[in-house]
């Protein structure tokens, strides 16, 4: 789960990492916006709080010289849409003038797996192209040791004493909040020291970490009917823009199916991973859910049987179609593996064409 910037900021502040002063304006705060911003010193930075990357290029990070200007920008952002998200919060910050923009992040990864600590002198928007970042692997059993901090300080050209509390705070936050990514970009070098003026955090949803409860609640408020229903059944569902719902068993297979649809010129409208061992009832629920999406006009079901029995899948599909009718929806099913023949017989008995290969099924649904 990607956290909103202000959520990440709260975590950083809890660990004593210097951040600029800011206020948060929610959709219900429109009246108080001027009052809130007045507590800050101009000039301002107004930032839409969205989970997606790339808000800067989309005009969702803007500067303002006065309270009125900041409020006007914020009102314009609230309720607008970016990458499928509605903007529900706007952060107005005091603008910090950096001498240099640095980059520091920590993320889980590496082989053997550890916490990867990245540091670069070229922070800001250019970091991804800059290269030359220092990459240190922090072993979970060693922890963030003083010598690693000193290497980062040397690389960034800052005193170890100034970066140490920031790195130590980030490292503790990463563990305490089950974060898989925590990024300060830029970490501004200012006259008054280092200030984390923008930040990103991603938390592990599987962690069961009670400290994430507030963030998860806020995230779930944003979920549409589709994702709520999918969660209830234990499906992974991602809404897309096109008209082809792609239903598969297994994340990799369903992604590959999505790619095959796009490759053939189709436009995927839904990603729906049934998970392993789906019984008829769950398959039925999945198909009904897909059919309920207003943008969905075609459905491609791709099943490689293993734990999942193709006959169970077939039964579920037949029942869903019986219930929904699905007039005007084009359905193609590919069955392979465990109980494939039986499954195909069931489908054909209900007048549904079942294919043995993914390519045939894709042609059927896209063509």
């Amino acid at each position: 789960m990607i956290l909103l910037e202000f959520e990440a900021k709260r975590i950083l502040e809890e660990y004593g990492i210097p951040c600029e002063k800011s206020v948060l304006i929610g959709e219900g705060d429109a009246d108080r916006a001027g009052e809130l911003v007045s507590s800050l010193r101009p000039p301002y930075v107004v930032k839409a709080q969205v989970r997606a990357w790339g808000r800067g290029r989309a005009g969702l990070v803007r500067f303002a010289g006065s309270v009125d200007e900041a409020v006007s920008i914020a009102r314009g952002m609230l309720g607008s849409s970016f990458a499928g998200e509605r903007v529900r919060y706007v952060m107005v910050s005091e603008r910090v003038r950096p001498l240099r923009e640095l980059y520091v992040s920590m993320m889980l990864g590496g082989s053997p797996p550890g916490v990867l600590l990245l540091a670069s002198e070229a922070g800001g928007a250019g970091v991804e192209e800059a290269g030359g970042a220092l990459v240190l692997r922090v072993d979970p059993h060693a922890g963030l040791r003083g010598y690693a901090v000193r290497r980062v300080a040397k690389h960034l050209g800052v005193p170890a004493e100034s970066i140490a509390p920031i790195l130590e705070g980030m490292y503790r936050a990463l563990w305490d909040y089950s974060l898989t990514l925590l990024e300060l970009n830029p970490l501004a070098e200012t006259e008054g020291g280092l200030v984390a003026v923008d930040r990103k955090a991603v938390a592990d949803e599987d962690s069961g970490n009670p400290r994430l409860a507030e963030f998860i609640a806020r995230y779930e408020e944003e979920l549409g009917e589709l994702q709520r229903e999918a969660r209830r059944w234990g499906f992974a569902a991602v809404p897309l823009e096109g008209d082809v719902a792609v239903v598969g068993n297994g994340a990799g297979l369903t992604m590959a199916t999505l790619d095959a649809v796009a490759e053939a010129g189709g436009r995927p409208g839904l990603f729906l991973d049934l998970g392993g061992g789906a019984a008829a009832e769950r398959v039925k629920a999945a198909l009904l859910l897909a059919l309920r999406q207003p943008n969905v006009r075609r459905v491609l079901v791709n099943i490689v049987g293993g734990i999942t029995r193709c006959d169970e899948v077939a039964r579920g599909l037949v029942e869903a179609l019986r219930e929904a009718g699905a007039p005007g929806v084009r359905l193609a099913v590919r069955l392979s593996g465990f109980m494939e023949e039986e499954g195909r017989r069931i489908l054909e008995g209900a007048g549904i064409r079942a294919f043995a290969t993914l390519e045939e099924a894709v042609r059927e649904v896209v063509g």
Partner: protein
Amino acid sequence: MAILVDERTRVLVQGITGRQGQLHTELMLRYGTKVVAGVAPGRGGSRVHGVPVYDSVAEAVEEHPEVNASVVFVPARFAPDAVYEAVDAGLPLIVVITEGVPAHETLKMVAYARGRGAVVVGPNSPGVISPGRCKVGIMPGELFKPGRIGVVSRSGTLTYEVAARLAAAGLGVSTAVGIGGDLVTGLSFWDAYQLFNLDEETDAVVLVGEIGGTKEEEFARMYARGRGKPVVAYIAGRTAPPGRRMGHAGAVAFGATGTYESKVRALEGAGVPVAGGLGELPQLVKRALEEAG
């Protein structure tokens, strides 16, 4: 030979009395895997499909010192405990099927296992299969034909799909390893590749990746330094939107990290051909085999 599992593998099933544990114990036995013991706390003394059940790994290993691999089916909450128990009992290979283990827990348990010389495959792995010899996991054995191609994958059903396509093209598999769909896993692509490199029965390796994380990039970096047997890759998720978790906990791209483009660029830069679609994969493998002579 194959890698990780073969005729000599003697398997302990942790969580053998659960629904998944029971089912796959039966399926593994049917495949020919030597499942010799199971563990379920408080259920010691019972049997599952004829396999004796013990309260602890220590007790199981004392009675069955031949055990040299464990497969973990216990729920996510208890899975790390099961792994530590298996490591402490000295087992050299631990295959974790369980999905939903917290990433930070995995990080610690993998570091622990590595420090004691144990290999953890997974979590969220479909297992390891050396076709015709041994299956430690949940994959449908009949889709895997014996042969000389190593497969290493982050995915389950996609691996079966790939194996089936290889088989259809006359290419069998020496061993297929599902490293798991989580962000953090024990065995890496590179670890598996190094094992394949030492395996006399493997001629080439198929790497099945997907978006999210940096596992493919890390493999590419290592491969560029010192490549061995030919590798051909397929990456799922080319058309997945950024910032969305595509089923697997590890399958999310953020910003420039974990994108399809980043992975393909890294792999191709290191000299690994990447198939544009699944259909191309068998041809690419054949071409790589021809080029390697």
